[in-house]
Every structure is written in C-alpha cells, then in structure tokens.
C-alpha cells in the first residue's frame, strides 16, 4: 500500500526539512558517509510505513530522531554480529590451512553452507562495508529482496556455525 497525495506531501516536506540535520547526526554516530545516508533513508522509509503515527505525533522531528537512533543501533549491532560470523566462518574448519587458501577457496568451501552468491553478499556487507543499496546496485535486485537474502544467508550460516561448534 503506497502513500496518498496528502501523505506524500507531508513526507516530502519533512524530508526536505530534516534530511541534513538527521544526516549530520548519523554521520557523527557512524563515521561512514554511505552508512549514514542509508540510516537516514531507512528512517524516512519507516516514517512512510508508519505515516499515520508520525502525522499524529506532537513532534514529528523528535519522532524521526528517535527512529534514526534505533536504526543506527540496529545497524551497528547487526553489522558487528555479521562481521563476527564471517570471521568465525574463517576458523570454522580446523583442517583448512588458511595460509594456503585464497578467498575463492573459502567461497567454494562454504558453497554447501550457503549458496555461494549469498555468502559473497554477506562478505560484501561485513568486510567491504557495503550498504544495502550498494549491494542492491551490484546485484540488480530490490532493497526488499536484498534484506530477505541477507537474512536468509545469515540464518543458514549461523545454523551451520552453531551445529559445528
């Protein structure tokens, strides 16, 4: 369900008013301009999804600010967790001599754990610090599909890491 014209105008006005202030906060919290921009975009996406809530709020700017803070917290924790999982996956099999392995070998090794392209996607986000949008542009899929793909791959990798502890 999309926004009606009235809601669209409300969001666009708010966006123009709050894009720079929110970006300033996000950039200082995340120290990465691409991630900061994505945090702000995600904040406005949530605002659109909950447009009735923000419209009825006595302080829409405060509502956006609180939402941005939660988005940033989620982003930091989620990315840290993913990085830990990827690093753990390097140590997953004691029989692998990492000294003699290159990245493509590790991808092949994990092809039975997660689909190879999914594992590469996780590495893009964790190690190359890609935003979802950057991953989306590389893969030619939608933001929604990318989020689902990341969640699915994480779940699989997590399951395998736990099973083989």
């Amino acid at each position, binding site marked *: 369900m999309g*926004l009606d014209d009235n809601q669209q105008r409300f969001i*666009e006005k708010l*966006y123009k008013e709050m*894009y*720079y*202030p*929110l*970006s*300033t*906060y996000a*950039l*200082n*919290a995340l120290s990465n*301009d691409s991630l900061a*921009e*994505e945090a*702000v*975009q*995600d904040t*406005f*996406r*949530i605002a*659109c999804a*909950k447009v009735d*809530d923000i419209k009825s*709020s006595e*302080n829409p700017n*405060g*509502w956006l*600010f*609180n*939402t941005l*803070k*939660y*988005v*940033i917290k*989620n982003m930091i*924790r*989620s*990315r*840290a*967790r993913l*990085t*830990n999982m990827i690093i753990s996956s*390097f*140590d997953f099999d004691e029989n692998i*001599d*990492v*000294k*003699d392995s290159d*990245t493509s070998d590790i991808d092949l090794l994990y092809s039975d754990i997660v689909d190879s392209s999914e594992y590469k996607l996780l590495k893009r986000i*964790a190690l190359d*610090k890609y935003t979802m*949008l950057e991953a989306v542009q590389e893969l030619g899929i*939608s*933001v*929604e599909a990318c*989020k689902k793909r990341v*969640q699915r791959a*994480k779940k699989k990798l997590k399951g395998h890491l736990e099973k083989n502890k």
Partner: protein
Amino acid sequence: MSESNENNHQKYSIYDNMSTEVLEEILRADSQLQNDKDSDMDTILYIMEVIAKREKEQPTGKFTDIHTAWTSFSENYLPYLENDKSLYDDEDIKDETGIKQIPLYNSSTSRKSRLQLRTACIVAIITVMLFVGTVTANALGFDIWEAVAKWTKDTFSFSNVIINTQSPDDLQKTLDKYNINTKVAPKWLPEGYSFKSVDVAESPLRTIVNSIYSNKDDEILVTIISLAVPSASTYEKDSSNVIKYNADGIEHYIMTNLERTKVVWMTGNYECSITGNFSVEEAEKIIDSIYGR
C-alpha cells in the same frame, strides 16, 4: 519570532557560538550514550539544525545533495513500505535492539539528561582542545578547569589523554594503569625501532591505546582496544593470503595491505593489532615476544 521560539533561542544560543567541531563531538558523545533516556533530545535537535544550517550555507561535500538523496529514496526505499522495521533489524536480536516499538516524542527533559548533555559538551570541548588546540574555553563561555573537576565526578566518561615520554616501558605502564593485565604488548620489534609515543582514548564503549615505535624512516603502530561490549572491527587487506600463527593458544592473523604488514588478534575483550613495514618472519618474532617466547 514567537515568545516560545525566542525563549528557545536564548536557551540554546550558546550552541550558535560553538565551532562545528565541538558540536559534532557533542553529537558523537550523545550517540554513544548507553541509555536513550539520558539524551536531551531538544538540545540535540537544535545542535543538528545549527550544523545543518552551516552545511547549507557552506557545503562541505560530506553529504549527498538533497535532490539526489530524495530521488534515490523515491526509487529505492519508498517502494519497500510493507515492512516498518529497520533494514538491519535482525529477528534474532529483536529483544535487544528491536524497532518494533518506536518511542514517540516525550517532551519532558529530565535534569539527569541535561547533566549528561552538559557532561558531553564539556567532554567535547576538552577533546577538541586537546586535538585541535585552537578553541579557547573563554570563547565558549566555559570555565574549563572547573568543568573538568565536575566532569571527573560524573559517571559518563569520554576523554582523551595524551602521554608523551621516551621511556621504552611506557606502553606496558600505560596498560597497567588501565588495568589491562593480559599479555598484549610486544617486547621485541625489528632492529632500529624505538618507543615514540602512546596515547589513550576512552569512550563508554571502548578504551583505545595506540603506541608508536619509529626508526629513521618508518613507524610501527601497536593498537590495543579494550571493549566494554564485544564487537569486531574490519581490517582491510589486499589480495594476498592471510597467515594464521598460533602463540600461547591464541590465533594471530598476519596479512598485508598497501605493502605494510598487519597482525590482528583477539584475546578476551581485547582487540589488538600491530602494523608496520616488516616481514612475516619478523611478525612471528614480534608475536612470540608478547608471550616471552
């Protein structure tokens, strides 16, 4: 200007006169507060607007311009409206960080919040003074030394202390001072390197100890990060292999990046790295020296 706006303007005018660097430090300090209730939202929003206004007047190029950003938002994010959770919302950590219940605006600002923010302001000023050295306390309207005395009594800590001496034992002494008792400091480095400096940066989430050793042409950087909450950094590497080296039961990873060698390892809540222009064999010798081998 309405009376309410005028009161607000007077209340917050102190921030109009602060440098952007100080204001940004306040935002950074606020973003690191463990408890969102400790944040003074009205003040932070005001500070954000001050910086944004300056950005509009004199763009720094740090942000995507608003028209491009709006186009990207409309094309990439707006179609994904069915889900009201963050893109990074992990279902399995929903209880810790979930955005399921987004708190609505609460207009009351507690005294504690204002105190926390004042602390953050003081810390921001100290940080900028230490690193930039061009901001004077008087210009900002603060008695900085009185503020320091008060600041040390507060629970919130975010400080930068720079120690510069020439004793070769200073990294270990600094680690001792911060109760870092785990073996993390190298006792051997390639010939010609001697201790240059050590500095410590503290935030609520981590304490970072950086020590530099130098020879005539180059430097070796030893970094020890004590984490309050376990997390992991990402290290950049080039296409060459990662070498695993076990010492004292701990895996150390040796990698190269931009013709420099980096050793990284985790031990307990400490994340450590040594970076410099040395060979893999020398890296292994440096690692051994940490454990007295």
